[in-house]
């Protein structure tokens, strides 16, 4: 089983790497066929990683996904799935290379770190898994919102400076980027909220309290409140597309900090 897990993780990483390289070449040449191949590579990588996660669940009955490298790998995997869903409706050529490389690095990195056991991890039944999956999915969607926001700012700046780059940026229109940002923000916030709630339930199943006051909880609740503010500002008509994009980038940077940096010390 352990061997299966590593093999599928390696296959997924190789497919992501191929997809990233293919997408960069496809955008630079430009070669639409190569871009299509890169999307297929990304999709197949996601399938291989899904099999790897399935194997992991069978190996570690409870809860095998609570360690940081695995959580980041799940987040990257869910970002890929979320982006593949968006690709059905939107043309997002510039999204493939960064996502593929992040998925490659996180997936490949996870193969070196075995899933660690957490004390009292068995408590709460499937709640820990639900918490990790929901929170990771929320992070993934908010990551895509941040990426769309970053691309929006790049394109907006190019249009505002009235300076055209030597080669046209392989980015979708700012209208599309704003749409993606909006959709990803709403979905990400909903999933993050569910992640926070299931996290609270998990703590309750272990200690009888809904709030333990750990560093991880404090920072994640702050991040959740920031996103609540962003959603209210965005849909309350108080933010334009540029501010919303900048907020999405800053919000995701904060979220990553609270998950990765704080997670490492808590």
């Amino acid at each position, binding site marked *: 089983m352990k061997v299966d897990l590593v093999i599928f993780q390696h296959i997924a990483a190789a497919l992501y790497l191929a997809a990233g390289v293919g997408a960069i070449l496809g955008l630079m040449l430009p070669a639409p066929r190569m871009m299509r191949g890169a999307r297929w590579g990304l999709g197949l990588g996601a399938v291989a990683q899904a099999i790897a996660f399935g194997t992991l669940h069978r190996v570690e009955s409870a809860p095998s996904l609570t360690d940081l490298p695995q959580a980041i790998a799940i987040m990257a995997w869910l970002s890929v799935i979320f982006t593949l869903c968006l690709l059905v409706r*939107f*043309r997002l050529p510039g999204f493939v290379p960064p996502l593929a490389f992040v998925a490659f690095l996180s997936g490949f990195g996870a193969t070196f770190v075995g899933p660690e056991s957490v004390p009292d991890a068995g408590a709460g039944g499937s709640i820990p898994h639900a918490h990790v999956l929901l929170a990771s999915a929320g992070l993934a969607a908010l990551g895509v919102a941040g990426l769309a926001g970053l691309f929006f700012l790049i*394109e907006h700046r*190019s*249009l*505002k400076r*009235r*300076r*055209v780059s*030597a*080669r*046209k940026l392989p980015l*979708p*229109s*700012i*209208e*599309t980027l*704003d749409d993606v940002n909006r959709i990803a923000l709403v979905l990400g916030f909903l999933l993050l909220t569910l992640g926070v709630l299931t996290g609270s339930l998990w703590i309750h199943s272990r200690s009888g309290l809904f709030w333990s006051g750990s560093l991880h909880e404090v920072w994640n609740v702050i991040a959740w409140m920031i996103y609540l503010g962003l959603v209210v500002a965005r849909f309350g*008509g108080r*933010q*334009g*597309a*540029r*501010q*919303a994009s900048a907020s999405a980038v800053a919000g995701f940077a904060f979220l990553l900090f609270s998950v990765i940096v704080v997670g490492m010390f808590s």
Partner: protein
Amino acid sequence: MKVLLLGMNHRTAPVEVRERFAVAETGPVLQKLIDRPEIGEAVLLSTCNRVELVVTTENLDSAKHVMLEFFARELADGELQSKESLSEWTFFKQGREAVEHVFRVASAIDSMVIGEPQILGQVKDAYREATEVDACGAVLSRLYQRAFATAKRVKNETGIAERPVSVARVAVNLAKQIFEDLESKSALLIGAGEMIEAALVALDDHGLGDRRIANRTRSNAEALAEKFSGTAHGLDELESLLPLTDVVLTCVGGDGPVLTRFQVETALVGRSGRPLFLIDMGVPRNVDPTVHELDSAYLYNLDDLQSVAATNEAERRREAERAERIIFEEREHFDGWLVALQAVPTIRDLRRRTESIRQAEIERYAGRLGLSPDQQEALEKLTKGIVNKIMHAPISRLRDETDREMGLARLEEARNLFGLDDEGDEREVLSRRQNPSDEGKIS
């Protein structure tokens, strides 16, 4: 066989001269040209920017004379005063220079607007018309097929045609950078002059959705609206129209701006942050320039668009340098093919020559030796074998040489060494075949 080109283009002749040489249908005039013995094959390209005649010939000097005469008599209908003035406006290219020029023209490297897509279609038409009147043979057919392949490579392997260089195309590309789909967007055109009409034609080509035309004189707006299936409005309706609009195009007279920052700012509030693209073609400007500072408003004036077009043109020039490398490679391939083709008659002459010598020598000795039919057959085989073995290496080298200069030099050497162009030697061989008694005489 040489490829020769006589051309006149936007660099060598003004439009009033070029238009005198332009022909709508090249087939009939080409037919007259290929009847001349100096010309082998011919293709004539006639566009608004160039008139170029490509021929194959064995005799360069005579062909040049015929081509100049063709330009003066057939194309200019004898209107030209003298051939001297014609040479001022035209240029000759021959051999590899001519081949490269054809490749450059088809790839739009030589065009007034580098990378423009029309020229390839025009070259294809010229080639088709030449083939229809049987003016195109093996050499020019191959040359033009390679030219089309070169143009395709240049388009695919360089960014020469990627960036627009006309103001209208630049505006459309910018709009596509802002909006994903122009068909679902609505345009507000302020003014009803020629520029707005031209913009409406361009918008028609790119399928922009609703068009609203606003003008001081409403009747002028109504006339345009009727022509382009839009709606007509007065300038007093701008504030109510702006929130419904995605692209604004203005070109209207007047001293002050037609659209103020306040008007646009108010409109943006009603658009929930959706972007607004404004193109100001008016002089003096019709839109307050500070509108560009608003987050969701992107304002470009004519100078901005022209500056983008100039940047793109400079980029195309850089890409043209990459295209030159492709053209060089393709020209080398064509040269290789042409040398191989030119080697064919030399190889054929060489074989004929050695065979005639072999047969002449057998005839001289066969009767005297009194050979039986079997021995005669053996002698035939033996001599054929010797000749073939001796000629194998030189013939292979002639056939395999792909470098044009080296190949042509080798062909020339072979013809000299074996006396292939020497009629006297040929006659001597024939006379020996007729008078075998001359055997052994040393002159």
